[in-house]
């Protein structure tokens, strides 16, 4: 059972990373235009588009 000492923090750290990634997305306004993003992924020649 001593493996739990290692696994529990690991599980928690991984999910906290996920949570942080989500709040980063939210802060970067990635949730502001869900409709547009779903269409944008289909543009095929945006290699020369500026960021």
């Amino acid at each position, binding site marked *: *059972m001593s493996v739990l000492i290692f696994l*529990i923090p690991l*599980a*928690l750290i991984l*999910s*906290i990373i*996920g*949570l942080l990634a*989500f*709040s980063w997305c*939210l802060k970067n306004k990635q*949730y*502001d*235009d*869900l*409709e*547009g993003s779903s*269409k*944008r992924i*289909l*543009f095929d020649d945006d290699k020369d*588009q*500026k*960021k």
Partner: protein
Amino acid sequence: MTIKNNKCKHCEIILQSNQTDFCCLGCQNAYQIINQLGLNNYYNSRINNESNHNLKPDLKNNLLLDDFVEKNGVNHNISLLVQGLNCGACVWLIEKILNDDPRVINARINLTKKILNLSFLGKKTEINDILAIIEKIGYKLLPYDQEIINSEEKKYNDSLLKALAVSGFGSGNIMLFSFALWFCDANEMGIAMHQFFQFISALIGLPVLIYSSRIFFKSAYNSLINHRPNMDLPISLAIVLASIVSVYQAFKGGNHVYFDSALMLVFFLLIGKYLDMKARKKAFNIATQFTLLNRNYARIIDQENIKIIPIKNIAKGMIVMVSTGDKIVCDGIVIEGESEIDMSLINGETRLTKVSIGSEVYAGTINMFQPIKVKVNKQANQSMLAQIIELINNADHKKSSSILLAEKLSSYYTPLVHLIAFLTFILWYFIFKKSFDYSLMNATAVLIITCPCALALAIPIVNTITISGFINKKLLIKNGEAIEKVNQIKTIIFDKTGTLTNGAVNLIKIYLLDADKLIEVKESKKKYYLKIAASLTQNSNHPIAKAISTQSKEFYQNLHVIEEKSLGLSAKIAGNLIDHQANQNIEIKIGRADFCKINNANYYQQLLLELHNYQPVLTSFMKIGEEQIVMVFQDQIKNDAGDVIAKLKQQGKEIILLSGDQKNAVEIVANKLQINQFYYQKTVLEKAQFIESFIKQKKPFMMIGDGINDAPSLSLATVSISFNNASDLSKNIADVIINSNQLQPILDLFLGSKKAIKIIKQNLAIALIYNLIAIPFAIIGMIVPMIAAIAMSSSSLMVIINSIRINKFFNLDKNKCQF
């Protein structure tokens, strides 16, 4: 998809027989621009439907946007609402064009809000040049006033989403430990391990609970201050008590901790809140776009130059130019020009008001004829509009307050539940002399199991689905409470102009004026006259000209039409073309009587006699060679008004017509629609006073209106409805906006709301029955965390499944509800 030959290649309007590929020069230009840029992929990938008709470019419109640019370091930024945007291809096209412009740093479109955010280098005025191409290909750009973007709302949305994510993270992870704790007790897994797991639960549970329940705590606190306890109060109390008891248990090495139950509760409730917010936002976004469609800028004369400025920058003493068909944006005095003004949004009058130099004009009215110049004579905050807004602000505390089901329920439910929990504690501790711990545990179990999870979901879930469904039925619900309140309505008060009538003139009759006699033109001949008239008026913006052009589908092309300011239109046409006997060119004139040289004095009396059923009317004249034609226009009753009023009456609703218009105009409409109660010539204040008498009688009522003069009355109503083409003010106030010109959606509103309230009541019953069953078990101490979790999820699930049934109503005509 290939473009069919009979449609315009650019805007997809169906072409007339003599046109090939394009319907107008503007579309041809637009198509060429896009081709030259090598972007014709756009035509292949866009969605082909009617909304592309809006892409017909308006060549006259030359927008100057530099006053709306904001400086940010070296960059300039601007936000614009893009009209005509309807699919991903549009986004691709506009972003591609703009981002290829070397002056542009970044252009990005938000498709949900239909907003273009642009930052660019160089001078402010460059913006006009950069964006000219977008206007040329048919998208119309409007300055987007940052004030309209409600940053408070955005902050709330983001914090709600964050809280939802955090509580989801918490309730997911805590299950890893809860499962072990549910199925093994301290003897099986060892006391140390048992307590370790409880501590880990606390480690996850406590911070997550504190973070994600803030919304509930805040709302509960506010409800306590206002002495109106809401559902969030028992929720908050259950969360706080469960946390305290669980921490205490964890330290003491007790049997049960309730962090998982509390977290799951918060997670479910936040989902409900998030869905509710999303539906409201969708309706709100559409409503905001309507508000923006009305111009929020004005042309002023500044030292011989014409400058476009935002309305809010208009100050006393400025001279504002108002062109034909434009809204007057300030109170002022006419200093140049003569015209007629449509005051219907201010006072409900259909008849136009003549103005000349020295006349006073008000914000919100529309200039119908000749361009005028207006000198602003009042500060914005003293204008009539500002005074009406003040009336509305004062109306807030007068508004008839109807108690909502949720409030009523929680005012009984909350004290009752707390009483039961308290009695449970007394029962165990004082009567059965059990330990303090044991008694407290059971009392907490009661609080957790009765925590109105399903109860709190019961109403928002139904509201969410209903609001989404109503969008497809052309109803925008801005205020979710309206759905419930609609069911209490017994009385409906209608405004006349723009509500029961179209609010715009329509051609109703054509007469031939032959030697002092009026002869009504036969149906077959009508088409002939209309085609000629429409050929002259097709490019004019004048309201009467528009009323003519919309009546005819056929036009004579390539006419050289001369427009004479505020008098009329004239053109010459080959006689044989219009099967006139003469072979030479014939002069055609449309306009005022003096312009057409119509001087038969008796016609007007005769006309009034003929039209006594139709008053008040507007007349316009046409002369084809020597033929004299009188065209009669009227603001007509909406074609579904009679049907809707009759059906509402059938449902036992009391109908009242409350108008600012003249007696005969109101009387005719009331008689036609068989409305017995009608009131006329009511000013803004009188309308509001009339409404207040209703509130004193405690009668819930609905107000339907579109004008600025209706706005104070709308703000007082139990439920207020406005239209998408109404004045901004009434749209902002209304609880519900009808996204069309029809009245039919009102019936849908009643029907849908009735369904919704029925399902809400069923939901509440499900939740209450579940509580009734669970409470006795909690009291005797049989509800352990696992049972609580199962009961809570299953009752919530049942409520959600029951709520989805309401989709049936919205799917009736295959409009799939987007939920």
